[in-house]
């Protein structure tokens, strides 16, 4: 018999053999036991996770001579025919190459004929999302009321491309990526049965490369054995797959954390001479830095890091030598450098420069300190008279038009009552805007909140801008009481501006009285852009209010 690739040789033939999709296989088996079989299924999920395999097993389970049964015998003629793709009752259609309306019409014509041998005529349409709109419409009618002997199994990697009308007529099962540990276990069984010798670390490398796809993992294993023979060690596996060996990655990270430039440069030189793809090495370093960060700061995430226990221990030990800020910054800077390296005409040079830059990121911690100081400064500025406040668009326009500048604000209201009201003032303005809008909101938005005493809010502003008529006063009182509670009132304090006011205008009230949130964020952003690094300490944030 000609050579069969592993994925085909070890394709699961029973529900029990399917790896990593237990809730789905169990549900389907129970449906078969209880004879509650839907007339249309949709299997969605990434490639290589078992959609088509489960579809074929289901077809066998339905048509097996002992069936419908949750355990197809794989021995009867019908089962064998389905396994070999020879059954006349199981039609596997590739949606990508039979995507037109004519193919679906043909299917509709033939569906009325009963199965030749089995109990059901099973239509497996793979990559169903590739069908044209017209083909989907033609399929819709058939899916709605198929003959009792017909069962549809649609499989797709892109369920969002399948029309909702089709989706709603199918019993849908979302297949998940298979966890690396399960893939590794499955590969180990396979290797043992084939009589090959691969160490667990090598198998782990293969499993990790597959990224949740068992078929990919089997393909990689095929590749490894074809190149390396039946006995392959982890270093050889890494070389064949083009990934960097764990030892080299750990050494690179150690050099980065402990700031040993010569060691790092030597390592790069060795990898270069061994013919390693340096861009791939960098990607692996970034990935490993992520593992280092998790090992150091979030040890609860052990299950999310696909490394052996010994590697995890080594990473944890290394992470202890670095501060949390350093670990965070390491990942941030490396992540951002990836694009730089991709575009570099001389990858080796770019890699060396990038990693040396990471090593010499000496003032990383002081950046946080700098930002903290900026925040303190910012808060102090926010409490100052509006000399440094940002101008609101409308205000800037009035000033430039030569109108009287808005009044000079004083400090935010004092005392707990005042602070509370000040916090809710922007929300109140929004409330007024929604309820009333118009001139009243316009006037209120031009004044600012002064002191609050005995539930009386002082509104400070320029005469021409905030003077209210009797109706507006009454309305405002009503709104104040509705928003803040009974017994709240207001009084207007007119504050005329100096003749030539060179001060910038008042902040827009909706930005909040004494709430410098946006400006703080902007400053943080600017600081980060200037200094690089990332935002870690958010102590000041806690003091912000919503």
């Amino acid at each position, binding site marked *: 018999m000609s050579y069969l690739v592993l994925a085909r040789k070890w394709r699961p033939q029973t529900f029990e053999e399917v790896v990593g999709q237990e809730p789905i296989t169990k549900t389907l088996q129970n449906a078969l036991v209880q004879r509650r079989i839907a007339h249309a299924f949709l299997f969605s999920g990434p490639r290589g996770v078992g959609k088509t395999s489960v579809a074929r097993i289901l077809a066998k389970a339905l048509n097996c001579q002992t069936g419908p049964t949750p355990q197809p015998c794989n021995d009867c003629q019908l089962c064998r025919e389905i396994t070999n793709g020879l059954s006349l009752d199981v039609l596997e259609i590739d949606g990508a190459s039979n995507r037109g309306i004519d193919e679906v019409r043909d299917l509709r014509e033939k569906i009325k004929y009963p199965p030749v041998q089995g109990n059901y005529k099973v239509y497996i349409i793979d990559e169903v999302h590739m069908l044209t709109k017209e083909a989907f419409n033609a399929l819709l009618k058939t899916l709605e009321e198929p003959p009792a002997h017909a069962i549809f199994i649609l499989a797709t990697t892109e369920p969002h491309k399948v029309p909702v009308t089709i989706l709603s007529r199918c019993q849908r099962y979302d297949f998940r990526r298979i966890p690396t540990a399960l893939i590794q276990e499955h590969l180990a069984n396979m290797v043992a049965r084939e009589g090959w010798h691969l160490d667990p670390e090598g198998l782990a490398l293969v499993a990790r490369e597959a990224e949740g796809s068992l078929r990919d993992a089997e393909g990689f294993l095929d590749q490894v054995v074809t190149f390396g023979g039946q006995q392959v060690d982890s270093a050889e596996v890494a070389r064949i797959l083009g990934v960097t060996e764990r030892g080299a990655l750990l050494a690179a990270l150690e050099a980065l954390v402990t700031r040993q430039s010569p060691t790092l440069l030597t390592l790069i030189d060795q990898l270069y001479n061994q013919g390693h793809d340096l861009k791939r090495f960098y990607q692996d370093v970034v990935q490993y830095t992520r593992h280092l960060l998790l090992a150091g700061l979030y040890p609860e*995430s052990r299950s999310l890091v696909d490394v052996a226990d010994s590697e995890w221990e080594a990473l944890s030990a290394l992470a202890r030598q670095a501060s949390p800020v350093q670990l965070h910054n390491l990942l941030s800077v490396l992540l951002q450098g990836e694009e730089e390296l991709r575009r570099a005409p001389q990858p080796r040079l770019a890699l060396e420069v990038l990693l040396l830059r990471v090593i010499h990121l000496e003032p990383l911690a002081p950046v946080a300190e700098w930002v903290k100081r900026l925040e303190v400064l910012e808060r102090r500025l926010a409490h100052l008279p509006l000399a440094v406040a940002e101008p609101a668009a409308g205000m800037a326009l009035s000033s430039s038009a030569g109108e009287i500048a808005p009044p000079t604000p004083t400090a935010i209201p004092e005392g707990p009552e005042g602070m509370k009201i000040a916090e809710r003032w922007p929300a109140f303005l929004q409330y007024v805007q929604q309820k009333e809008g118009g001139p009243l909101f316009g006037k209120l938005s031009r004044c600012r909140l002064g002191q609050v005493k005995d539930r009386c809010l002082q509104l400070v502003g320029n005469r021409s801008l905030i003077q209210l008529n009797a109706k507006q006063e009454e309305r405002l009182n009503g709104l104040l009481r509705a928003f803040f509670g009974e017994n709240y009132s207001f009084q207007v304090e007119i504050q005329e501006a100096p003749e030539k006011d060179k001060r910038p205008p008042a902040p827009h009230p909706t930005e909040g009285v004494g709430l410098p949130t946006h400006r703080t*964020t902007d400053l943080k952003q600017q600081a980060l852009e200037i200094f690089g690094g990332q935002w870690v300490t958010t102590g000041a944030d806690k003091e912000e209010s919503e």
Partner: protein
Amino acid sequence: MSHPILERHLESRSLKPLYLFYGEEEFLMDRAVKRLETFLAGDLGEAPLRIVQESQEIDLEDFLAQARMPPLWGSGQLLVLRRVEAYPAKALQALLPYLAHPARRSWLVLTAPSLKAKEVEKHPIFSRLLKEHAALAFWRRREEELYPWLMQEAKRLGKSLTPAAARRLVEVVGDNLAELSQELEKVALLAGEENTLAPHLVEQLASHSRSYNIFALVDALGEAQPHKRLTALAHLLEMGEPPPLILSMLARQVRLLIHLKEATPGSPPETLTGKLKLPGGVLKRLAQQARAFRLSALRAHLLLLQRVDYQLKTSAANPRLWLEWALLQMGPG
């Protein structure tokens, strides 16, 4: 039960020759048609000939002519015409002579999912059907009606659904009856011999549902432990969700949370439901989540997500790492 009026007609064997089913809940409409078909099969002693057509495929006059033609085989026919509201008013006039002299062995069901109650009341022909109890409304169920409905459905499947499991199912699936019915069917199958459908069974299958997982990610975002965020993200990636899609779903959730936070305190939930175009149940869930966040933190998260979006679209770096990096920076604030 399909529809109380239809059930009454079935019980008294006084079926109307033509029914109009209107309202947005097509799942219940389909069920009522099936109920009618089953009844006719029992009554006639054999399954009626069933013809289903769309208004785009056939003129109303031709459809009615088809109804007048007695079936060649069998003793009766059930004709269903979908989306009848698409016909112009003039075309609908053809119904009047048919209603005056309906065919004896044909039963007609016209469905109109986008027809509103007021439109039916004002329409010269539909209002007549309404008066004759031949126009039946199928409205979307309110959230509080969903739980008893689900429990009844579970009973129909021979299972008992706990209230907690019913709540979990609605949280996971939403308020679409067709989807709820399908998921309930799957949970019942997963349960096998087990008679009670408990929340753990819903969880087991729900972990395979995408809507569940984006909520789980936002829930985790509201907690202080970053590893929970990473676990929720890993779950979504295992489901095969592409990272840019996860990012956009996350950004959408954050935007909705910001809208909720920015809403005027005390504004009625109905206003928000309309403004955000979300069902009540989802809004309730969002409101619960919003409590865990500070507004300033949410705004910062949106900026951060925008930055990551740029990176995902312009660089070849590992998207998972970028998403994880962003999630580590995010939090309740």
